[in-house]
Every structure is written in structure tokens, then in C-alpha cells.
């Protein structure tokens, strides 16, 4: 027993927070070991020490039976001992290879709060926290079935982070679960702190800029996708769940859609798709029209644009690039700056992207309109990575337009579509349900049919296709 304590002391450089307490019960000596920073001393003294004091016959069984601590683990190896010690458990060394780990964790996480990134006018207001058990609980509250299966992993040489894989067994495809399972087991890295790292380690990162997972802050979103056959990865200490595999269409769906009538949802979806096209193509089409295909613009508008551009010495591409980069800088600084200083950003931003830039003769007013509509349309997507990917393609389209005009836009557009349609993750085509066409899921894509009519899941995600058997109640 002493050897283990010596080894632990040596491994941990005998640091202060680890407390070794020797306790004698009759003839038996046991050690209580815990890490001060992680445990709540109340529970150690209340439950463990007090129960041990009442103990008369110090056998291993007796301790386990009498101790009033609810959660305990019997462990045998030194590795488990260190893991539990570092997870906030209190260890009772009873004998060689006979240890008991008792949960005395201090509550280091914050409570469930309202979401900050997924704002919807209506909908549940709880969000994930940094505590993985709490997160699983939040999902479990919504999906009570025994079919919600959870696989646990511990990843990271130093961090030893708990990672959980959640899926509904009778819905999710076994292939996909096995694949992700294998990928997660293959990870061999020094540490995992963010869920994004896990995602980057299991996806084909370089193939495409578009994200093939969705990060969900709300248990609502996670549960919604679980029911569709997607699987969820939760990482301890990270309040974002990973939903995989995701498609392009998933970025256009919002929680709010479940609350509205299908006809209103359809209109909103169309608006979202239009803004997708606007944010991707507007600067490129503007450049192409202004520098190559002037004949397409009605003459009155062309005269107006010509009048506005009369005093701008730069090429249209340079002008657009200048404005787009200014906007990106503005957005980036807006993310970094503390909220109390954000009014400074809006004042300066209005100068750069506004009348002052026009008066200075750097850009034309119409360019400001073009960039403004591009920027505002790019902000409607919840997933930040989607916006970043759009940024790259927007730039490619602009280069195509500058080199080849409308023909260049079409050329880049073709490459863009080829790229997207050849892109898949875990067997899920990125453009599903548009290509390959899937009648069942098309009902919930650009337009949404009445909820009663959406009866199927995506066959790429599940073999359990039928989702909704509600009979039509009205003639």
C-alpha cells in the first residue's frame, strides 16, 4: 500500500492539493486520497469520514455497504486510480488492488442558461453546459426511450476527456455508428479541449470548405437531429454538441420552423435560399456585368452606375475586394471586442462602409449597396463555418468574374456544383435531398409541406424510413 502512495507522490511531484489522509480503524490502516481543487470538502467529511468513523469492523465489504456516498466505483488498477483521482473522486485505499473511488466532485460547472448563439423567437431556452453528464441529461429528458444509446470514450493523453456518442439505436444506421466509433477509437492525441478538434480529427478536412457537421448549442436541436437518424458527439467541457453527418439543406432549417405553419416556413426557406445565392453571387455578377457584359444592364441604370463610378480610380474588382475585406475585418473585430466597446465599431464601420468612403472617392455608392446586401445575406446562417465557407466561394466567383465575365461566373458555378455534389461524409451526400433526389425529404427542403405530410427520414441516414404515421384527420 505504501508503494502505491509513494508512486503516486512521485508521479504527481508530491503537489500540495493532493491530500493523503491516514486513518486507522481498529487494527486496519486505510488511506483517503483526494485532490483538494476538485472535491467538495463538505461531502468528504459528511459522507466519507463520518461513515468511516461509525464503522466497527473494517472489512472491504463493510465499507462499501456502510458508506453513505451514493456513487462509488470499485477499482483495481493504478491507472484507474489516477483517472478517478483527477476526476474529483475521493479514493479509499483499502488494500493492494482494492480501492474504492467515491464521487465527491465539486460543482465547477455553471447552471443551464439560455443559448447565446441559437436565438429563435420561440422555442426551448435551455442550452448545453460544460458538463457532459448534464448535457446527456438534457437530451435524455427529451428522448426517454431506451433506444437512446450512448457510447463513452476517453480521448487525449493528458486531458483524458470524456466523449460520448449518442444515437437512437433503432433509427441510426449501424454502418454510420460503427464508422464513427472506429474513427473515434483511432484518435490518438495529446489532448481534446474543444468539440471542434474531435470533428476535425474524424472528417476529411481538406476536401471542402463547407462544414459537414452542425454544432448545436441547444438540446432541442440535438434531439431533433437524433430523431432524424443523425448521431451526436458530446465532448466534456464543451457546450456544443456535434451533429453529424450534416447536409447543405440543414443550414437552412431553423428551430423556429417547427413552430410555424408550413406555408410561412416555406416562404422563409425561400428567402434563406435567395440570400444564399445573393451572398454567394452578387459581387461576382456585379463585377461581370460592369466589366464585361454591360449590354445586360438597362441603359438608364448603366448611366447611373457610370456616373457613380466616374471618379473611382480603381478597377471594379479592387473596389469590391477593398469593401469585402473591410467588412470581414469589421466582423472579426466585432467578435473579439468586449460588448461595452462595440459602439466604437459601429461608428468606425459606418465610416468605412459608408458615405465617407464614397466622398473620399475610393468606392462608388452602388458598390456599397452590393456589399451591404452581400454582407447582410451572409449573416442569416446560424453555423459560423457555413458563412466562412461562403466567403471563400464568393471570392472565387469574384475572381472568375474578373477574368472571364459572366462566362467565368458560370465556369466557377459549374466547378462549385461539381465540388458540392461529389462531397459526402459518412456516406451522406452533401446535396441530399436535392441530388440524389429523395422525394421524402424534398418535402422539407426549399419548401416545407404540412408537417402531417412529411413522413419519411433520409434513406442515407437510416433504414427505419417512416417517421410519421399520423393519419389525415380531415377529409
Amino acid at each position, binding site marked *: 500500500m505504501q508503494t502505491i502512495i509513494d508512486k503516486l507522490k512521485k508521479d504527481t511531484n508530491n503537489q500540495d492539493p493532493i491530500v493523503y489522509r491516514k486513518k486507522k480503524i481498529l487494527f486496519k490502516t486505510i488511506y483517503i486520497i483526494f485532490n483538494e481543487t476538485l472535491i467538495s470538502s463538505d461531502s468528504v467529511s459528511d459522507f466519507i469520514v463520518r461513515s468511516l468513523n461509525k464503522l466497527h469492523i473494517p472489512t472491504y465489504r463493510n465499507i462499501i455497504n456502510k458508506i453513505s456516498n451514493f456513487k462509488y466505483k470499485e477499482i483495481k488498477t493504478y491507472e484507474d486510480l489516477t483517472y478517478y483521482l483527477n476526476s474529483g473522486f475521493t479514493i479509499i485505499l483499502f488494500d493492494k488492488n482494492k480501492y474504492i473511488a467515491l464521487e465527491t466532485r465539486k460543482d465547477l460547472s455553471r447552471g443551464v442558461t439560455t443559448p447565446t448563439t441559437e436565438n429563435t423567437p420561440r422555442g426551448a431556452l435551455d442550452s448545453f453546459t460544460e458538463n457532459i453528464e448534464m448535457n446527456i441529461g438534457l437530451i435524455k429528458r427529451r428522448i426517454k426511450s431506451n433506444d437512446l444509446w450512448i457510447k463513452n470514450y476517453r480521448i487525449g493523453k493528458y486531458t483524458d476527456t470524456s466523449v460520448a456518442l449518442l444515437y437512437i439505436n433503432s433509427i441510426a444506421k449501424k454502418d454510420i455508428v460503427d464508422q464513427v466509433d472506429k474513427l473515434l477509437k483511432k484518435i490518438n492525441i495529446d489532448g481534446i479541449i474543444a468539440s471542434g478538434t474531435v470533428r476535425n480529427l474524424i472528417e476529411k478536412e481538406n476536401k471542402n470548405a463547407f462544414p459537414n457537421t452542425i454544432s448545436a448549442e441547444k438540446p432541442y436541436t440535438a434531439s431533433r437531429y437524433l430523431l432524424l437518424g443523425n448521431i451526436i458527439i458530446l465532448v466534456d467541457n464543451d457546450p456544443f454538441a456535434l451533429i453529424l453527418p450534416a447536409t447543405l439543406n440543414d443550414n437552412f432549417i431553423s428551430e423556429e420552423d417547427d413552430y410555424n405553419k408550413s406555408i410561412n416556413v416555406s416562404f422563409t426557406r425561400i428567402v434563406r435560399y435567395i440570400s444564399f445565392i445573393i451572398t454567394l453571387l452578387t459581387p461576382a455578377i456585379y463585377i461581370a456585368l*460592369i*466589366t*464585361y457584359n*454591360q*449590354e445586360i444592364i438597362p*441603359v*438608364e441604370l*448603366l*448611366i*447611373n*452606375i*457610370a*456616373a*457613380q*463610378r*466616374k471618379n*473611382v480610380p480603381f*478597377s*471594379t474588382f479592387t473596389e469590391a475586394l477593398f469593401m469585402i475585406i473591410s467588412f470581414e475585418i469589421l466582423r472579426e473585430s466585432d467578435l473579439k471586442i468586449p460588448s461595452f466597446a462595440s459602439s466604437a465599431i459601429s461608428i468606425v464601420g459606418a465610416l468605412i462602409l459608408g458615405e465617407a468612403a464614397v466622398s473620399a472617392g475610393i468606392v462608388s455608392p452602388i458598390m456599397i449597396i452590393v456589399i451591404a446586401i452581400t454582407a447582410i445575406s451572409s449573416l442569416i446562417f446560424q453555423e459560423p463555418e457555413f458563412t466562412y465557407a461562403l466567403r471563400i466561394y464568393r471570392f472565387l466567383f469574384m475572381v472568375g468574374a474578373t*477574368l*472571364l*465575365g459572366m*462566362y467565368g461566373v458560370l*465556369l466557377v458555378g459549374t466547378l462549385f456544383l461539381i465540388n458540392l455534389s461529389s462531397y459526402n461524409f459518412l456516406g451522406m451526400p452533401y446535396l441530399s435531398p436535392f441530388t440524389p433526389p429523395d422525394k421524402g425529404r424534398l418535402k422539407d427542403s426549399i419548401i416545407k409541406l404540412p408537417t402531417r405530410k412529411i413522413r419519411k427520414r433520409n434513406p442515407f441516414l437510416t433504414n427505419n424510413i417512416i417517421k410519421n404515421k399520423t393519419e389525415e384527420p380531415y377529409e
Partner: protein
Amino acid sequence: MNKKKLIIIISLVLLLTGCYDYKELNKISILSATEINKVDDEFIVSAQAINPQAPDKTANTQAPFIIYTGKGKTIQEAYRNITDQSSKFLYSNHLQILIINEKLAKEDIGQIIDFYMRNPAIRTEFYVLIGKNDDIINVITPINDISSSSIKEGVQNNLKYLGTVNVTTFNELTEMYLNPNVEIILPSINLINDKEEGENIENVENTKVKTIYKLEGFAIFKDNKLKGYLTEDQSKSYNIIQNKIDNTIITYKCNKSKYMTLEIINSKSSVDIKNNKINITIKMEGNLNEYQCDKDLNSNKVIDDIEKEFEKKLSKTIEDNINEIRTTYNSDVFGFLDKIYKTDYQKYQEIKNNWYDLTYQNLKLSIKTDISIIAKGNIMEAVNEKNK
């Protein structure tokens, strides 16, 4: 062939066209109208280049457009000679109107059609008009100060509400030119008052504009040469027969000194030629907009009578106009021969050689009009009647 080579070849094919058509908007000058004349065997081309001005600047001191003039033995040469005067590339894809001076039109308009058809850089959707005066495009027009757009909209409006001219794009002119069975007919345009004053921006500073263009009746051609002009009334008849208008007004006497006006809101006509007889059927619907006589308009019989009156007089007018056009110009602008060509090819073969000499003048006319008055306005009877 390996994949890399293929990719390189494909990208070369796709990208080698790079930038060949690149032109910044700052570097081009938009041409919106052209006027072509011929003096002493040399073409004179005037081009209207728009001088873009910011819309918010209220005190414009510059002219809204600049007229460049060039001379040359060919139209292209004349165009190129303009380039000497301009600091920017002259961009003619937005050409809106082309005015052919009547002096040139009297010679031959074939050369002009050849030039514009051949030129790939010019869209052939511009309107063609015959200019009865020189330098019509030089005039600064009120409200829409760029005269080319003003004329273009003027032509459209006229066709929509009056029907004395008609929209003839260059493509339609080409069709008429290439079709051996049809003669060319083009709208004409004239200037009211002195053109020198119209070139000054002061022209639009008064409420009563001194110099302004006026759309006039059709210019009629024979063998691609200008022969003469139709009156407005004849032009309207032509448009009705050709089924080009929906909306116009017709005015006739209802008794010796008083008039009535019918606003036509729907007009359909068809031409049919059989046994040396031209049958024209015209079906019209209209609103009785003005009625100066004293008659009880509540009675159906009166309305029927008015309809009949209109029918009779309109038939008469159209018949007179067709006959007058035939005898004066001996030019088949109505496309009667084309109609025969399309419906009765054997007959066409027989008569085509002697069409003008024997047949055209001798074809009998039969015109049937069917006018129905569908509304007579807010009041039931003539105002005069109430005052009694």
C-alpha cells in the same frame, strides 16, 4: 492520357479566353443614338454619347450627352473617325435608336442594313426612324433629357395610345428588306422649330419648350428607296390593317357640325385574299368617350345606330386610304403579295412577275368592320339633353 494532362488541357481551353473582352465602365462611353446622313458621296455619322451625371447633383452644368460627328467613305470609317474626338471607347451595344436621314433614304438604305447586320458588337434591337430633318438627336428634350430614350419612349407611347407610328426595330427592318414580297415602311420623325436652339441646355429651362421632336406618319419605300410620307390618318389605317395597335381613337361627325369620338381598346384584324379580292375583317371594341350630338344614349337602338355609323365610316376611311396609298406610291407595304405567297403559292408564281403592273392596282377591296361599344362612361345621356 493521365489525369493531370487532361486537367491541364481542360483548364487551358477554359481559361485561355481570359480577359479578352474586359472593359471597365470608366473607360467606355455609351452610345445611345446614331444618325446617318450622306453628303457628297461621304457618310456623315453623328453619335450621341451619354455624359453620365450623378443623379443627386441638381445644378448640372454639363450637357446630358455629347454629339460626335465623323465623316467617311463607309459607315465604319465614319464611326472610327469619331474615335479621334473621344477619350473613351465608344460602346455601341446600348444603341437605342438609329435615324436615317431622308436624303440618304432616298438613295438606298441597303448599305446601312449591311453595316449593322455585319457588325457583331451592336445589338440589333434598336429602333429605326427616318429623319425629315438634320441633327434630330442633338436636341435636348424635356423631362427625359437624353433625346434617344425620350424618342424611344415616345414611339412606344404613340403606338400604345395613338397608333400613328409603329415600333420598328432593326430586326424588323431587316426582315422587310430581305423579303422580296414586302416593301419597307418606317416611322418618321421631324423637328419643330430651330435645331440650333435645341442643342442648348436652355432649351429645357422654360415651361414651353422651343425645340422638340415630333413623330410623324410612316415613310413609305419602293425598291428600298424612300418615296414619300403617309398622313397620320393613313398611318393609323395602316396600323389597324396590320393588326399592330390595340388602343387608339377614331373621330367622326355625328351630324353636320358635331363630332363623336370612340376610344378603341381592343382591335383585331385579318387579311384574306381570294379571287382577286382583298377581304379585310376588323373587329373592335371601344368606349364612347365623347358625344356631342343630342341622342338618348340609354336606348340600345341608338347605340346600335352609332356602332353602325362608326363601322360604315371606318370602312370607308380605310378603303380610301388603301386606295390612295396604292395609287400614289404603287408600293405593296401591306404585304398583300406576301399573303398570297403564304396562302396560295401557285397563284403567287403566276402573278409575281407582273404584280405591280397588272395585279396590285386592280385588286378589289372589301372591308368588314365590327365595332361594339362596350361602355359609354359615367353619364347615361348626352349632357346637352339635361340642359334643355
